[in-house]
């Protein structure tokens, strides 16, 4: 599809959180990043962030709700995301279909996404359509249920089931991520189940669930509105007051508290799939988002798999040529983080060889350390990405979105500089430290996805009994 598809259910692992935002640079000096902003709170608890950028006549309205699949109940997995879809289907003063009709007629595009921790919505618009976007967002925050129907729920349930088919069931390796999560996190941990949910749970969702979920989580006191682009602060204040101030607060939001999850021993898992090349997914428990160790593991991921001379790429793909590809990433989230290494084997290569190489290379980071040049290459790439992310005011990862992310997950929208500083503080010794503390010899899920009928290609994982799943 050459255009937007809304309602992306972001698997936690799909969120490579390279942080970012605004900026200034002394010639040849270090890059400075910041996104200037004004923040205020309405009496109903709505947090508002405004960033003026007059370089083009465009603006973005971005609204985060602090609710995601982590807030779901057993038997209703996938509900936060299904609810996100329903948010586009009209509200008391916006007939079904007009949310999109009005925005497109004004030259706007919009989208939303759901993750484990949060749900976000945005409209990228010509600056003159600011009031329209705010009116639309306010109406679905304040007046969604007045026109909610069983038909809307049923229709979007079908759409979401197709989203699951397209992204999971009908994709090679499509079940891998959710299989890893269900093995890495215990059943009572909210990262145990996938954001997209199960087909059975999607089928079970009722209109009462929609109403209860809305009343619990979709309240101004659980939301943050970020507006960036060619706007004036005074006009934003006026319009936000006009459309949002009289929407009542909701009750306090239930908190989700879970103990840190751990694995007692390596957990090998085998999945047979309609694929021809075996692929290994290794996942460890890792630090939460925006911690220093989260940044260090992000850098370590680059040292392992970014660039031809990165440790694992060079060994597996370039020198030995037993892997087709290899990637690593740190996925820090609100309640916990996960560190991933994923490698696809060449035809007929057993995954045990790749697993062995991964163990050896992690051990080598711990015992032999990391060279200054390796660290420097990785951090320089991060700096460029920071500057690059200041180019757009809207969309996923644009400045409005980033301000909201910092607000919710770092405690202040003005965290860009501190975010980049986390990376600059990473030392060679720190990289060896996080490898030792979180990865090398630490129990992990070792998922082998192998062609149907070829279980002998799976990795065994060190000294533990294999568990074969259908």
């Amino acid at each position: 599809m050459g255009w937007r598809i809304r309602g992306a259910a972001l698997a936690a692992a799909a969120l490579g959180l390279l942080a970012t935002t605004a900026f200034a640079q002394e010639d040849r000096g270090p890059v400075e990043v910041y996104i200037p902003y004004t923040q205020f709170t309405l009496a109903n608890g709505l947090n508002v962030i405004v960033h003026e950028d007059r370089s083009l006549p465009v603006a973005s309205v971005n609204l985060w709700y602090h609710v995601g699949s982590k807030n779901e109940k057993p038997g209703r997995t996938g509900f936060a995301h299904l609810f996100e879809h329903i948010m586009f289907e009209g509200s008391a003063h916006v007939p079904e279909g007009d949310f999109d009709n009005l925005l497109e007629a004004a030259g706007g595009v919009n989208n939303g996404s759901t993750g484990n921790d949060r749900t976000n919505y945005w409209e990228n618009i010509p600056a003159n359509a600011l009031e329209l976007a705010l009116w639309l967002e306010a109406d679905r925050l304040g007046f969604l249920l007045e026109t909610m129907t069983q038909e809307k729920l049923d229709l979007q349930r079908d759409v979401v089931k197709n989203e699951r088919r397209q992204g999971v069931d009908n994709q090679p390796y499509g079940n891998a991520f959710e299989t890893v999560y269900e093995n890495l996190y215990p059943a009572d941990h909210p990262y145990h189940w996938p954001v997209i949910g199960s087909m059975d749970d999607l089928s079970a969702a009722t209109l009462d669930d929609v109403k209860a979920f809305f009343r619990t989580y979709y309240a101004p006191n659980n939301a943050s509105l970020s507006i960036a682009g060619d706007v004036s602060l005074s006009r934003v204040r006026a319009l936000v007051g006009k459309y949002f101030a009289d929407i009542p607060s909701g009750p306090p939001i239930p908190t989700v508290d879970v103990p840190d999850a751990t694995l007692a021993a390596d957990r090998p898992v085998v999945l047979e799939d309609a694929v021809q090349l075996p692929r290994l997914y290794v996942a460890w428990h890792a630090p939460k988002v925006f911690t220093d160790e989260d940044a260090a593991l992000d850098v370590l991921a680059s040292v392992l798999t970014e660039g031809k001379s990165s440790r694992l790429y060079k060994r597996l793909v370039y020198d030995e040529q037993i892997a087709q590809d290899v990637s690593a990433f740190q996925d820090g989230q609100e309640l916990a983080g996960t560190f991933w290494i994923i490698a696809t084997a060449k035809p007929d290569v057993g995954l045990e060889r790749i697993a062995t190489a991964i163990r050896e290379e992690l051990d080598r980071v711990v015992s032999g350390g990391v060279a200054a040049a390796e660290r420097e290459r990785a951090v320089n790439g991060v700096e460029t990405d920071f500057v690059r992310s200041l180019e757009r005011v809207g969309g996923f990862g644009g400045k409005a979105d980033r301000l909201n992310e910092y607000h919710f997950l770092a405690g202040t929208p003005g965290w860009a500089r501190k975010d980049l500083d986390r990376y600059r503080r990473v030392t060679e010794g720190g990289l060896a430290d996080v490898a030792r503390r979180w990865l090398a010899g630490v129990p992990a899920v070792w998922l082998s996805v192998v062609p149907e009928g070829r279980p002998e290609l799976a990795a065994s994982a060190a000294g533990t009994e294999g568990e074969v799943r259908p």
Partner: protein
Amino acid sequence: MMASWTALSLAGCASVAYTSSDPGEGTPASITVGPGGSPSGRGRTGTDRTTVPTVGAPESMEMPEIQDYELDNGLRVVLVERHALPLVSLELQFRGGASAHEPRLAGLASLTADMLDEGTSTRSALQIGDAVDLLGASLSSTAGYDASQLRLLVLRTHFEAALDIVADVVVHPTFPEAELERLRRERLARVIQRSDVPAALADDAFAEVLYGDGHPYGVSLLGTKESLESLTRDEVVAFHHARCAPGQGALIVAGDVTREALDSMLTRAFSGWTGRGQDPPAPPGHVAAAQRTIYLVDKPGATQSEVRVGRVAADRRTDAYYSLAVANTVLGGSFTSRLNSKLREEKGYTYGAGSYFDLRRFPGPFQASAAVATPVTDSAVAEFVQEIDRMHEEAVPAPELDRARNYLALRLPQRFESLDDVVGRLSELVLYGVPLDFYSGYVAGVEAVDARETLAVASEYLRTSGMAIVIAGDRASIEEPLRALGLGPVVVLEPRAPSQAGG
């Protein structure tokens, strides 16, 4: 040459079709709040939510000027200076791409592009990679149907050093045999991987059905098992020599660099690089429109069917550019388009449906597509056919046409937000020989399209009687229902990719 592209005015746009009569637009609301403060009036404030806020006239967008000139060696340079962020984005393009080699050499253009950073007379593959990474730059090279393209994004402070690497890989590549063999094996495995992906099966079959394997647009850019096993280093070297010459190239740059600085860097980095190269070959013969036929690619057990409906349509320089753009926006080019509204929002058959005209140097495909649930495959195909044909059967109603025109015209500034956006827009104009002031007339061009014109282009290009319908899905479930539709013959395609990995 100096194209005038400043002050791109959006003022000619019709205002939004959905306007209200609310006279209060522009009047500040009575409630204001301060940081940490509270609104001056709480509770129900009497805000009128029943009328849609008026959207005023759009603002003009100021575009920087485009500097368009030639270096002494014949290389065209197109520069847009933008100094807001200390970044530079660059593309070095060479005309030709996969259209410039015989179709039987499938994969040659993209393999040659991949080989550029695998070794030069002074740097090994690993040294090139390390040097690029140390600069925090991203460098990639690819080949499409009509051009080979090398792209760079880098901080301003490292631009000159990165440009040296770009020049090195383009002017002095050595195409080491060992690296070529590594990439050959990697591609052969990618061909296998591709055959596991239902969408890729449908895309490849669609291209082959439309163009045949004697046309460059009909064969895989990646290459096939047969072609990849037989491509030689000599062919790679010869292709590079013919294509990657300044006389075939253009350099498009946007970002924090001045003309003066750029010229001095280019002169140094590309010193001694000359050559006319070979002009890309003449267009292949006309491809006849097909009789409506359903082609099936079996993907046993698939829970969705990947559907592609289309035909060979227009090239990038078509006179009907704006009419095609507006017609496609109505049909499948936006979220509220007919295909998405029908197949997703009304029927729930899919996560998303859309369409586009892929305008290339020679007539490219029109394609409508969706991944639909297996049990509704026949119903979905029937809806595709009905919605596509409706475009030529009846005129588009005024509100729908207004919305489509505004969606295209008013979104224009958003399409120039990043440096890569600017380079991408200009790259297309340069490649297809479109005047660089194209976007100065874009809004007027879109707004001038009327229902008669969309009907005319639909009549020419959007009749399903001349279209192929390609479906990758579970044959056992979908074949009989598809035959029962009576839309045309059903042909089952044999998979061309290897069905089993290795030996």
